């Protein structure tokens, strides 16, 4: 299989190859560099980039956004330099990208931008609307925007209304959750459509990107178990409940966190059910 990283990110290639429990060789060419990953029975076994080998190579190439790849199945690794399982590598990769995050560095690892995927296209559209409109509001490059047609500006108005409607719903929902900490409406590429938090120190974008990876892993596992459709996914920690629930269509999910001591799991689940329905109805078509 050959392709372009713009169509399929490296994280996805690793995920797909490993989930299918393949033994394979993946060559990736990017800006004059070539990395080679080897898979053995569904795990990353070896990686080479120039003089470097091992796990660090994977973390380095996860940030590559463009280039071409060539996946050959049945090619065995010449040696084994990686022992960590593939999901651990992807999570660690996400963490590192997050730590070094500048701008959109985290996006590639959770990117799922198949051009044919209408849900993703819709999300991309929504995000670009939001970005454009925020910039418009800030007054940056106003002259450029003034060149836009009246129709475009009207579109921005509609788009902004869509977003503020989501923000309003999340804000209202926050008042219904006992022990409320944070909530976000997130696309399956890990990018927030809207978010709301009482914790100013938290970075909702980074958190959402990582939770999305977790939810995708859980979804894949549940599918392999033949355990039906995920209703919600709960993580209980010493101090918090973190609940994720898909909106109908599984292109977006609602993530919410509540304080475990002051919160109430039944309340959290009930409110998540009620508000995913509302958010789904309010989503722009």
């Amino acid at each position, binding site marked *: 299989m050959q392709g372009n990283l713009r169509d399929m990110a490296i994280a996805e290639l690793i995920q797909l190859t490993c989930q299918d429990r393949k033994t394979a060789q993946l060559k990736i060419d990017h800006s004059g560099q070539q990395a080679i990953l080897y898979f053995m029975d569904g795990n990353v076994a070896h990686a080479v980039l120039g003089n470097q080998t091992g796990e660090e190579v994977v973390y380095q190439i996860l940030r590559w956004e463009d280039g071409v790849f060539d996946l050959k199945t049945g090619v065995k690794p010449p040696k084994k330099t990686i022992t960590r399982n593939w999901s651990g590598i992807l999570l660690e990769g996400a963490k590192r990208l997050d730590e070094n995050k500048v701008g959109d560095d985290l996006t590639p690892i959770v990117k799922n931008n198949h051009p044919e995927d209408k849900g993703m296209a819709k999300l991309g559209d929504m995000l670009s609307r939001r970005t454009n409109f925020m910039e418009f509001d800030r007054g940056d490059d106003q002259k450029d925007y003034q060149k836009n047609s009246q129709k475009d500006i009207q579109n921005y108005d509609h788009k902004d209304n869509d977003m503020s409607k989501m923000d309003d719903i999340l804000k209202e929902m926050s008042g219904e959750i006992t022990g409320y900490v944070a909530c976000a409406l997130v696309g399956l590429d890990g990018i927030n459509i809207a978010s709301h938090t009482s914790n100013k120190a938290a970075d909702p974008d980074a958190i959402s990107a990582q939770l999305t990876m977790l939810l995708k892993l859980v979804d894949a596992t549940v599918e392999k178990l033949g355990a039906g459709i995920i209703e919600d996914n709960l993580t209980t920690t010493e101090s918090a409940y973190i609940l994720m629930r898909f909106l109908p269509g599984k292109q977006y999910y609602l993530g919410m966190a509540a304080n475990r001591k002051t919160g109430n799991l039944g309340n959290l689940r*009930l409110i998540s059910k009620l508000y995913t329905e509302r958010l789904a109805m309010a989503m722009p078509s």
Partner: protein
Amino acid sequence: MDELSGSAQLNSLLLNINSEGGFPISVLTDFQGLAIAWAASNGMDPERQSAVVAFVQRAAAQVSKQLGMAEADEISFYDTNGQHLVCRPFQVDTYGLILAVVVPDRGHSYRRATNRAVGEIRRIWKTFWK
């Protein structure tokens, strides 16, 4: 009271019925046994009570089905001291809920308080979440 959120109103309602009926604990739970709201005096464990109440409701539903009876309107569980657990399963929209209170002895009336609470829960639900 209408300035409060729906969740806060439910908690407030349960506090009121505890006070009105002399109940040491009341919980509103879903059929999976997760408490949606509760009011409890010290030493009571609302999460455990919710789980048990859902179990009682499931057992009662089996009994009703086996005997060809309609769904239970109230399920009571008495101990030898007269303290009893009263469970009121009911539906709001598509959601199955159970209101459960512990009544300290046989001399306490509870039916009026639980009836009023079920009506209020339905009203709050419709106001905030329909």
